[in-house]
């Protein structure tokens, strides 16, 4: 008997997404569970908005937008401004995100540092590590990791670390990444999916 097809982790049909009013759509797409997708497209096409709709930070104004039951999304937002002063350490950040302390040396070196004293690249690396290991104890297949422009602020020093961390995500976990950085996407070996191909396609 052939194996049963794996249900998609996200299914949308003619979905209209936005905040106070619809901004993109109709959007129709299916993301298989365990997929490794790079969502591509020009600025303003709605890549970040789609990720925010998945986490509930943006609204679905119409159509169908279904996340598989028991899916646990985590999101690395495009930017995270740091207040000054901000008396939290790297360890506090992992605790806030419900993440485990990673084995990666580069990340461990940041645990006792104050967040407002990290460089932009170190801050991005710590956030990335936290999102990737947030509630890692959930079944891998129920985890959906959303990374919005993860290559932002990564200098040469931590770029390879970021690639290494993302590649270590379990194979059953779904990974959805937006990026304009082709070199970074190539290093990760993801499938490219231009978002525009799924708009007005329903």
């Amino acid at each position, binding site marked *: 008997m052939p194996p049963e097809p794996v249900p998609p982790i996200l299914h949308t049909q003619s979905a209209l997404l936005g905040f106070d009013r619809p901004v993109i759509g109709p959007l129709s797409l299916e993301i298989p569970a365990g997929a490794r997708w790079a969502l591509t497209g020009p600025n303003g096409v709605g890549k970040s908005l789609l990720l925010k709709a998945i*986490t509930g*930070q943006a609204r679905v104004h119409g159509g169908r937008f279904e996340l598989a039951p028991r899916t*646990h*999304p*985590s*999101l*690395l*937002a495009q*930017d*995270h401004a740091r*207040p000054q*002063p*901000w*008396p*939290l*350490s790297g*360890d*506090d*950040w992992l*605790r*806030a*995100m*419900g*993440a485990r302390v990673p084995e990666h040396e580069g990340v461990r070196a940041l645990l*006792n540092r*104050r967040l407002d004293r990290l460089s932009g690249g170190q801050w991005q690396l710590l*956030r990335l590590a*936290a*999102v990737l290991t*947030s*509630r890692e104890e*959930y079944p891998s297949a129920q*985890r959906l990791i*959303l990374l919005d422009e993860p290559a932002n602020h990564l200098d040469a020093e931590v770029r390879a670390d970021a690639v290494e961390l993302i590649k270590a995500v379990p194979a059953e976990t779904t990974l959805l990444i937006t990026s304009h950085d082709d070199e970074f996407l190539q290093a990760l070996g993801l499938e490219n999916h231009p978002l525009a191909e799924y708009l007005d396609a329903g």
Partner: protein
Amino acid sequence: MPGDLLLTPFIAGVLVTMVLALAGAGLFLRGSVWQALALGQWAAVGGVLASVLHWPVLPVALLLGGGIMVLLQRSRDRERLPLAVFLAGLAAVTLLAANFAQASLAAAAWAEGQLYFAGPNELWAAIGLSLLTVLMVPVLLRVWLHAQIAPDVSAASRPAVWQHLGEIAWLVAAIVLGSMVLGLPAALATLLLPAWGAAWLARNFTGLVLWTQGIALFGFLVAWTISLPLDQPFAPVLVLVNVMLALGARLAAMLR
């Protein structure tokens, strides 16, 4: 005033200072200092209004403070609306004081602080709030830490609605009781300044909470020691001491 009579206000003051300092650390992390100003001012309106109507002060102050907090929580505006609400509260107290003799006395008491006259009622209220705080600390720390992560999203479940509501109710109780016991300016100074000073010195979240407690308690003891023998109102002395301690903490962090 005999020494044993001062034990009650001293203990009430210490307990309220510790609770306010913890609330201050939370408000600092949440970036909600304007909300604290508005809430404290409307607690004072409640206290002054209660004196005019001959009603018990604490329930009226809690009711008005709670109502204001509900209003502020419904808006995303963290600066202009709380500032407008604070100014409206200031105007309300001034108008009440201008038109009613009892209100004028009550307004002066809220401004200067009545710590030396705190009695068993205030002490029991402070003990009750302190015990509640001990029980609520894990919830408060979780809510404040979770509030830091946006716009990132964790796969972990968010704090439950009752935990958010519990935090708000606790903040209202802390600010209202703190303003009643220490006086409004002293309560606000204890809320805002030790946490701000501690934020420059602390290495992490736990350090923030501990440094805030240390600065606030030290400030209380210094103000108590200065204001009693010099026969000065407690609240303004505490405000000045806290300003100096917070600036000292900032300076110490710069020199480190």
